[in-house]
């Protein structure tokens, strides 16, 4: 490796990567799974890496992305739902953050973060956990 490992963790990562061969990088970095039993026995020096290197890839294979929020078939999609009512409009679930925000062609459901509400997601570092912290904006 041309990048020079400097501290002990870097040494261990290089060793780990070298030993993992063809395993994809993300999985290599996942570290041990399950409770760090080594910590109890005091014998596994990699026990601390559990937190450091993140989790294993999800067991469930990835499926095509399915929007859960407002409809994309009835453009512009936000006045009525597929059944002609309003009940099914933009359900306030965390997936909306992915579906409606920034990349969405119809940015009606979230504040204009580029111009008026730059801090809107300031308390929402991970949408899966923090979406309830997003508050309504009254222009």
């Amino acid at each position: 490796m041309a990048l020079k490992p400097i501290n002990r963790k870097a040494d261990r990562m290089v060793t780990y990567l070298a030993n993992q061969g063809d395993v994809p990088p993300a999985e290599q970095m996942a570290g041990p799974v399950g409770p760090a039993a080594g910590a109890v026995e005091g014998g596994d020096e990699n026990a601390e890496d559990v937190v450091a290197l993140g989790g294993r890839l999800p067991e469930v294979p990835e499926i095509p992305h399915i929007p859960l929020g407002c409809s994309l078939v009835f453009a512009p999609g936000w006045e009525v739902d597929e059944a002609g009512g309003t009940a099914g409009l933009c359900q306030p679930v965390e997936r909306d953050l992915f579906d409606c925000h920034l990349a969405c062609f119809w940015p009606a459901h979230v504040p204009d973060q580029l111009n008026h509400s730059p801090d809107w997601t300031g308390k929402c570092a991970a949408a899966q956990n923090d979406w309830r912290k997003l508050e309504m904006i009254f222009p």
Partner: protein
Amino acid sequence: MSTAGITSPGGLSVSAATATPVTAAATEAANGAATRANGAPAPAPPPSSGASPAAPGLLTPGEFHAFQADGATFLYLVPSAAIFRMDDASLAVLRALERANRTPAELVQRLGDRFPVEEVTNRIDELLGLRAIGLLGKPAPAPPDMLPPKGFPLTTMVLNVTSKCNLACTYCYEYGDDRIVEADSKPRYMDLETARESVDFMFEQGGSNRLVHLTFFGGETLLNFKLLKETATYARQRAREVGKEVDFSLTTNATLLKPEIVDWLAENRVGVTVSIDGPREVQDGLRVFSNGMGSYDIILPRIKDLLARHRTRPIGARVTLTSQNLDVKHIFRHLTEEIGFWEVGFAPVTSSSCRDFSISDAGYDKMLGQFEELAHDFLEHACADRHHGFSNVKDTLEEIHKGVSKAYPCGAGLGLMGVATDGDVALCHRFAGSDEHKIGSVSEGVDVDVQYDYLKKHHINSKTDCRTCWARPICAGGCYHEAHTRYGTTATPNLHFCEWVRSWTHTCLRVYGAISERNPAFLARFDA
């Protein structure tokens, strides 16, 4: 203080919230790009489809903090806490990605006039493997909410042998306005039976740990010296019976040190930390007896006697910094060069923001400036293989060297517990005696449900504010007691410290990088 030209734009976890979800096709293409980065030239990306702006295979900077030392550029990777020294090609890759997300093919094309194709693709591959870069829309998996296993062994037990103190320091967290425990709610002195039960508890909770540390704490520890002696004797006896070792330390204000106590401390190899705030004018303004009399002239001869005769363990000083004593360098020189302490550690006072002694923002800036100057001194000493007693930098360097990435800011409630005078077990010594922070008792053991509920709430993954901070592997939100005093809850990260902690961590990283360039052999001492 200069930082490297590279800055992480917030890391993959942020990208995750803003990037368009990756479709199955895009995922496949992205995986293909990652594989291609292993050597084969990558084709141009397919045209953007419809409303999705995420081109497949686009690489984006991961989460890291870049810093420079001695002319070299290093990356501190987050959350792994690994440090790598960059070469020109990897720096060029990161700089190119900093300006815009690009595919491997675009990178090869862009950097082709400066580096061979193979070198660029190899660097991309390495950076991907280390997660210094990632694929746009394909964030690194979040660290697991993994709790420590049940039965995690106790390493250190802090025994509050008394809650009474013969000083009346203006800022004391135990007696001041920010106190958690009312002084009269618990016995003022621990009795021998409770102390023995505590020792038994310690060995039992120690599990497979061969060595356990017993720290005597107070109040003023030496007010209960008789119990302390008897407890140490009992602990040694129990250690022999269970085939373990026990190590002792204590913190004292030094007012009660007598020759026979010093002899005992030396004979029993007890590690001693003296709470002292600096030269006479500082000490006498803050660390006073209840009648207002300063304590400097009382403690100075006692400390000198201790330093002269207790040679079995290095003696350290612990300074509490307040708005009235922020001349860190002056205090450091006084305590090391004039008095002779081996090490000095500094900690800002714990208080709500409104107290007279609370440190203002300007005060924190001043303190940080002085810390940086002392860190520079430390570096010069380290490069010459000489000892320097600034324990704050030493402790941080050790964590950097090992690459710790903390799920919790400290071991409280896990490897470290505090025992109150009545035998109640709390998160740490600062909460000893607080019913709200009780996790068990030495007679009945630890309430595992309470303990794990607490561990769950305080895990770094539960701290939203920390999620995008590059210093979280080392800080993990900071002291629970500080948070409780500031915000009324232990679970909140210490947001008032953030800028300060990041600046200080950056300084220590630079010191570490410089030592690794100039005297790498010095770092081996942190391997122990």
